[in-house]
């Protein structure tokens, strides 16, 4: 992929395939701090279309912050983020190198195609399931209501909640709420989906149904960045795992390699502690 992109002549000749292979997400030199605390230090990640990248690491390592920077729920101080070639958040002037924040409207537009699912579901409690799902497609993307509702029903069928269309979130279990949240994000027809510890707030017996929905999504070719503590799930779903600690990517690799033959001591120690506790 990189050679195609770097090779100007092949770019010119094979424009279409080159565009196809353009990374879906490109983070370069990302730095972010909360006051004096540096949370992310020069993080660079490239995610190809259809790739599932799982981010693991101890709590407080910057995983969630990294994810939240991608759709600018967090501001960042340095670096660039581009989704499908479109920068989000800040534009850097090529010549002067000056960095300018995009307007709120531009940022909102960029967010439309970045789906996000949160640890605490964050459904809108005053709307029923269907309203939760169609609100943004209808009001933000201006899709016709009937069409949006048809799509919502499809998505609900996909996550196995066809019978909950008219329920309010408070009447649903955590697992059901989280699956509605996934459907809500998918209804915007996102190019990439971000999952922020989406099973951490769930009872153990409800985790499976959410993971199954994500598995299916990955199978359908969705580009995904997943922050999780579920190691066995990470192994099953990931094309690549990133291990973050102290705001830097300590190690990255294929699941089997990173989880069973880590190259760095830090990852080995983390996994050993994890295994001692959970025995995957």
């Amino acid at each position, binding site marked *: 992929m990189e050679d195609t992109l770097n090779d100007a002549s092949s770019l010119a000749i094979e424009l279409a395939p080159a565009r196809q292979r353009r990374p879906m997400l490109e983070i370069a030199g990302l730095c972010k701090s909360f006051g004096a605390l540096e949370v992310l230090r020069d993080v660079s990640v490239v995610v190809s279309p259809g790739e599932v990248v799982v981010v693991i690491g101890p709590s407080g390592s910057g995983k969630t912050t990294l994810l939240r920077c991608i*759709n600018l729920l967090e501001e960042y101080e340095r670096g660039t983020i581009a989704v499908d070639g479109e920068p989000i958040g800040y534009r850097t002037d090529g010549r002067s190198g000056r960095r300018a924040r995009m307007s709120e409207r531009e940022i*909102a537009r960029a*967010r439309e195609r*970045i789906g996000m699912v949160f640890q605490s579901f964050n459904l*809108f409690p*005053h709307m029923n399931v269907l309203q939760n799902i169609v609100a*943004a497609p209808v009001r933000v993307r201006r899709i016709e209501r009937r069409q949006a509702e048809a799509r919502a029903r499809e998505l609900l069928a996909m996550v196995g909640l066809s019978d909950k269309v008219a329920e309010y979130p408070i009447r649903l279990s955590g697992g059901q709420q989280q699956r509605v949240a996934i459907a809500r994000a998918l209804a915007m027809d996102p190019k990439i989906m971000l999952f922020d510890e989406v099973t951490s707030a769930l009872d153990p017996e409800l985790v499976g149904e959410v993971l199954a929905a994500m598995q299916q999504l990955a199978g359908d070719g969705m580009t995904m960045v997943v922050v999780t503590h579920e190691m066995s799930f990470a192994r099953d779903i990931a094309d690549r795992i990133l291990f973050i600690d102290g705001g830097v990517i300590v190690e990255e690799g294929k699941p089997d390699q990173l989880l069973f033959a880590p190259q760095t001591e830090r990852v080995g120690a983390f996994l050993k502690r994890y295994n001692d506790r959970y025995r995957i």
Partner: protein
Amino acid sequence: MKELGPLIHSFWYLLRGAGMTVLMATSAVVPATLLGVLLALLHVFGGWLLRSAILGYLFLIRGIPLLVLLTFVYYLMPLTGIDLPPFWGVVLVISLYYAAFVSEVFRAGILSLPQAQWDAARSLGMTRRLMLQIVVLPQALRLSAPPYVSLCVSLVKATSLVSIVGLWELTMASREVVERTLAPFQIFIGAAAIYFCICYTLALYGRHLERRVLLGH
């Protein structure tokens, strides 16, 4: 039964006074609410200049009794040359006064909405205006409904103060009847009962709203 005579005779008169009380309260509660919501929004989302101006207004209102304000405006009005009928004058004062408290109630409602709701709305590409319109305000208004209703109750009772500046409503009507009949206890017990019925009905409605809020919708 004979002691209740003066009350029974003048009950219709008192009820007409109560009608005026309700009219005055309703006339004041609408602008107070609209202005209160506006102030709350500007207080939460406005720039620092606007926020300090609103904060100053809130401090001022909180530190001045309504009765003093009413009397002050009563004497002020002729001097300024503003020729407003007394009824609308007091409605204006009560509205401005209660707008401050309404704004605090709604501001608390907006601020008590979890950050996660904002995050979810933003992640769906909503602009700030749309977020406010379909996510934040519907929930904030719902959350503030119960304290808002108790403010309305307090507003109804506050209208009794306007009798001091000579406006006719339930309290004024009662005082007139007392002067005529010299039966202050009977008449004021009657007036109190009427006030109680109005306010208790409102409070019951507030309790009903509260239950709905607690249930989620």
